[in-house]
């Protein structure tokens, strides 16, 4: 296995699928000649040319709709949102059209598109640019949402998403692009959509997270072991919809305690749904209520040191775990 960055892993997935299937093409702002605002598509235009890697004007509704229509005829567009926040100007196309077509046609139409891009805060770009809409997108039956936290998952999930016959939203993070990790070189390496991953085994409490928060959870788990000899199990959801209920319920039934960590804003965030599922299906196993940590419930704050406070970190996780386990600091 090679050690590559999360960015490179996505790029490899894109390149391999473009190579593998003539119907796959990338479209988005600055993805071709500029090599991508975050360099995820670097080199692909040079390698595959104008047809397979397409620079689009700032018309998200236009080119997402274009991608949906093209997918009706079998193309598999991989549509980049420079920031996922920009999907809001194309919301009707992205969630209403993409989720409804198969259903309203009684199954006559498929919509095999991928919409991908970074969906994270923490980069001091302000309120309008820092949204994490995985909770909203997963609210729509007809759509799928995956949120890879590691390079290997990024590659495996991206390839699965591109081969999937339903609309899949792949939500990345600019803060993860530079992270390195081992990634299988096998071109058939696919991470099934809908499978969570136990990133750390533990018996005392289940830390359940997705995306960047998984790394926060792992960091916290290490500290918990060191400082309090607490063995936290870390579950990486990887996929929000479909959701691997079995794996997270199994963990909670073992540890009897759950702390959900996410960068979502709290109200109706992903954690709210997970919390409901756990208390509903593992009620008698719980020794404590399900706790949640989310971003501070306000629009994203520009000032770097303050935005740092706004987004969950391992210290806050530690504090909350102590609180759940009644450990004195």
């Amino acid at each position, binding site marked *: 296995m090679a050690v590559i960055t999360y960015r490179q892993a996505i790029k490899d997935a894109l390149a391999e699928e473009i190579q593998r299937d003539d119907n796959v093409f990338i479209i988005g702002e600055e993805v071709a000649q500029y090599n991508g605002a975050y360099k995820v598509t670097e080199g692909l235009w040079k390698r595959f040319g104008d047809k397979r890697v397409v620079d689009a004007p700032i018309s998200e*509704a*236009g080119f997402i709709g*274009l991608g949906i229509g093209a997918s009706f005829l079998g*193309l598999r567009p991989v549509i980049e949102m420079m920031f996922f926040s920009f999907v809001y100007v194309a919301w009707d196309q992205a969630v209403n059209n993409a989720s409804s077509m198969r259903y309203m*046609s009684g199954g006559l*139409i498929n919509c095999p598109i991928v919409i991908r891009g970074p969906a994270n805060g923490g980069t001091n770009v302000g309120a309008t640019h820092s949204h994490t809409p995985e909770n909203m997108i997963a609210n729509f039956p007809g759509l799928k949402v995956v949120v890879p936290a590691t390079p290997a998952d990024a590659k495996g999930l991206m390839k699965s998403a591109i081969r999937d016959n339903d609309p899949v939203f792949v939500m990345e993070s600019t803060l993860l692009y530079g992270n390195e990790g081992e990634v299988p070189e096998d071109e058939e390496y696919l991470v099934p959509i809908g499978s969570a991953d136990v990133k750390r085994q533990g018996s005392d409490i289940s830390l359940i997270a997705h995306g960047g928060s998984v790394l926060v959870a792992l960091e916290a788990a290490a500290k918990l072991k060191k400082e309090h000899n607490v063995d936290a199990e870390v579950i990486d959801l990887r996929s929000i919809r*479909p959701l691997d209920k079995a794996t997270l319920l199994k963990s909670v039934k073992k540890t009897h305690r759950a702390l959900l960590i996410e960068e979502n804003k709290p109200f109706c965030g992903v954690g709210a749904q997970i919390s409901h599922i756990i208390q509903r299906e593992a009620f008698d196993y719980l020794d404590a209520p399900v706790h949640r940590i989310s971003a501070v419930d306000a629009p994203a704050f520009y000032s770097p040191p303050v935005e740092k406070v706004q987004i969950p970190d391992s210290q806050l996780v530690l504090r909350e775990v102590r609180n759940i386990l009644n450990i004195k600091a």
Partner: protein
Amino acid sequence: MSNLTPETEPFSQGKSRALSKEDLFAFAKDPINASMSADAKIKAFTDMVRIRKFEQAALQSYQKGKMGGFLHLYIGQEATAVGPVSVMNENDHIITAYRDHGHALAVGMGMNECMAELFGKFTGCSKGKGGSMHYFAPDKRFWGGHGIVAGQTPLGLGLAYALKYKGIRGCAICYLGDGAVNQGVFHESLNLASLWDIPVIYVIENNGYSMGTSQMRSSVFPDAGLASRAEGYKIEWDSIHGENLYEVRAKTYAAIERAHNESRPTVLEVFTYRYYGHSIADANHQRYRTKEEIRHYQERKDPINVWEQILLEEGVLTKERSKEIETLAKEEAREAVRFADESPFPPPSQLLADVYHSVDNPGTHTNQGTIFFNDQLPF
């Protein structure tokens, strides 16, 4: 670019005079029309009549409480669907908004499946899941049937994009209303179509109103018409008298040839009129327009009458044959109502079918986990 003269003045809904015989035959010698067989002419007439009879039957059934939701009638606009479809080639695709019965029947969908869909029956073209606004027939290259105003405009662009991508000599005809031009996504689509040489044809069905709002109150009307906005994107455009099938065919075919030969888009504006309200719910449509205005169109600009008149002139059609075609269409529609009536409703279990390809085709993918989230189901 437009041949519309002040006298025919389609720009002022309701005041335009009937087309003269010269106007009517102005496009008859156009190759696509000159080469039109008698059978093809009769078929176009029959299709328009069938659309009207289908909708009249649908209206009656609606009034009998046989269906729910909306019912947007196309009556009065039939030539705008039948004309372009009659000149489409085997690789040309079509997509429209929610006023889609005319387009559906024109491409060859059956009255039975269409009526059953209105009735919400399992035998409907969308299994009862889509309703009046959401007819689809991919096998006939018809892609709906879309309820969100202008939501179909980038989809039509995408269909054409896919054809070009695959190197197929074809195009996509994407309809929208005069009210839909006010949705930004249509403009984004126009720019992309021209920038990338996409073989898409936008047909603005200007029937004078978006619900109760006259076209003049909803969109600034350039002297040359809404289609002339295409110039801002260096796109060819034209305007069409919607009551004259010859003109609709000739100008649409010119656009199709442009798409096929130059891979360039076109914007066409068809001046037409709907006789009924926006939808059946729009009972007071005579509040925002006069009875006289409606009668004016019915009497002097009805696409079926105009085409009949042309075919009688040409000796292609006789009064008897015409009556017979009408009777058969009525019959067919009545039969469709019976079919719809007798068809079963979808079982509730259908609620969870056709949501995901991966759920409906278990063998074909590696998906895992839970994908539906009801704690319990009512069925």
